């Protein structure tokens, strides 16, 4: 069949394993493979670099049970959980953004803009300020309370946007508008809390709002890891409808999709992913916005590739954290770096969409 190899569909041959079969697309697979290598390198670098520099072999040795007690402490208690938190949070944000962007069909859609991030911020800052100045929540209750409140705040804001945007179904554009509104309300509430709160609490809250990996331990790794273990496969399975969901509602329905059910399910998955990630590391800006678009451009696909967005999200946070820790004498919060990288990118997106609108 020499002619068949030239036909367009045969360019992406089917990969069969028993009853399952998938489309083999070389370029997106290559992007995932290369990104995984880059991610691994960044992960190792994030553990090696620091005030106590270590070599790669020292780190490997320590992980296998060797090394000095100081090495043990630095690697296992400090750097490993920090790097893992960053990697997992980045992956969760990337996947959340990819789902939002595919459903809303807008590269600007992300949990940052759809209210989830600032909802989480408002939740966490309430606990931080009330815990200090009012003495209601103290000690360990506050350290568990902050991520928990962040999680609940993000879920609440996300579901609120979803509920308010619902008119016999979800339309992307309306969801973005409602999301901007809720983001503004949650943002203003957060600023109000910072104003009325104690100065020291406000300082702590500001660090949290920026998004930081400082002092992240295993207690931050575990919830995000669990969420990803459950939700990545769920998103991959549910995500096979994303391709056919890319059209107007009527076309999608004509292709046999229960549009509202499918969209609702995937949006809730995306909201949970973003909330869990924000609860662990604070609202790290632009990762959810940028990683799906980077993955999409590298892969040359029309919709953000889900797994590619996970890997690139992780790599983006790792890279930003590496920069944040090394560029200045003191360690900067990772959110500062992602914001600095993300702002020009956002402008690029806006300029580009304006140029396209003119054509």
């Amino acid at each position: 069949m020499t002619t068949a190899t030239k036909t367009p569909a045969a360019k992406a041959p089917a990969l069969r394993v028993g009853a399952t079969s998938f489309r083999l697309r070389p370029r997106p697979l290559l992007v995932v493979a290369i990104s995984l290598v880059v991610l691994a390198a960044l992960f190792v670098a994030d553990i090696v670099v620091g005030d106590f520099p270590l070599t790669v072999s020292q780190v490997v040795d320590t992980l296998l049970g060797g090394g000095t007690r100081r090495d043990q402490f630095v690697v296992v208690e400090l750097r490993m959980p920090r790097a893992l938190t960053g990697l997992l949070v980045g992956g969760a944000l990337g996947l959340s953004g990819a789902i939002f962007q595919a459903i809303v069909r807008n590269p600007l859609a992300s949990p940052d803009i759809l209210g989830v991030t600032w909802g989480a911020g408002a939740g966490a800052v309430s606990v931080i300020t009330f815990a200090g100045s009012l003495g209601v929540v103290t000690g360990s209750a506050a350290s568990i309370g902050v991520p928990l409140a962040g999680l609940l705040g993000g879920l609440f804001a996300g579901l609120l946007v979803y509920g308010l945007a619902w008119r016999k179904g979800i339309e992307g554009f309306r969801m973005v508008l409602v999301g901007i509104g809720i983001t503004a309300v949650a943002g203003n509430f957060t600023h109000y809390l910072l104003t009325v709160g104690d100065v020291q609490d406000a300082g702590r809250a500001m660090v949290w709002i920026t998004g930081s990996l400082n002092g992240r331990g295993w207690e931050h790794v575990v919830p995000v890891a669990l969420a990803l273990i459950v939700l990545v496969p769920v998103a991959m399975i549910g995500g096979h409808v994303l391709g056919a969901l890319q059209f107007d509602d009527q076309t999608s329905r004509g292709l046999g999709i229960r549009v509202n059910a499918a969209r609702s399910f995937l949006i809730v998955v995306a909201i949970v992913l973003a909330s869990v990630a924000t609860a662990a590391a604070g609202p790290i800006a632009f990762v959810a916005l940028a990683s799906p678009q980077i993955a999409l451009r590298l892969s040359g696909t029309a919709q953000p590739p889900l797994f590619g967005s996970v890997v690139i999200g992780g790599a983006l946070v790792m890279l930003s954290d590496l920069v944040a820790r090394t560029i200045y004498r003191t360690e900067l919060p990772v959110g500062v770096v992602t914001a600095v990288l993300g702002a020009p990118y956002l402008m690029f997106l806006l300029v580009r969409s304006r140029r396209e609108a003119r054509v």
Partner: protein
Amino acid sequence: MSVRLEASSLSIGYGERLVVDTLDLSIISGTVTAVIGPNGCGKSTLLKALGRLLPARSGAVLLDGRKIDSMSTRDVARVLGMLPQSPSAPEGLTVADLVARGRHPHQAWYRQWSSDDAAAVDAALEMTGILDLADRTVDELSGGQRQRAWISMALAQGTDLLLLDEPTTYLDLAHQIDVLDLVQELHASMGRTIVMVLHDLNLAARYADTIVAMRGGRIVAQGSPGEVLTEEMLLEVFGLDARVVEDPVSGTPLVVPVGSRHRVP
């Protein structure tokens, strides 16, 4: 002469307003039906209800004798292909990928792409003559090419029943003929059943076996082009003063509007 698709006392409305009013219609297997009527007569709404895109307020749509409301969305999509009036595709989607999406009703999360899918996509592209455009993105195509791409997607869906909502909108006359020739070929070579909403009466007369004329949510006339397209019907349905002559090429009715400039007082 079996009935493929049937509307029985079908009423559809938006809010208070009834757009389709207790309508009965039978689509015979293997025929091409054109639905005509003035703007707002409910012809697009009828087509959407026939394709299960809109719920019936009362009455029912029967697909192969089964109530379409009781069938799953996926089961309907395996039998019936629908092309809405102005479908939208995401930016950057290639033609091959667009057409591949037509295979969705035959796929599952664990079986996302099979050799059947590849064969169906290639066959659809071949039939519409856009195999060479497969790697181009949908947004860079011309209107006629784009319409062919969308029809290819509906073809890849592999249904022998196709509902097309104004497949010739925004196309120049040559491309309108092009698309309708393709529809004709689908009908002739594979016996597909086709229902389409058309604005151009003369083209409807040429390409359809049956014409259904609607006004105010009801069917005013239906039958062969010669039976339906009469001067009386045009006056009644469209309020149009027109002469009907014989099309010198096809022998079907040719509608020639009079207009105020040529009206004899």
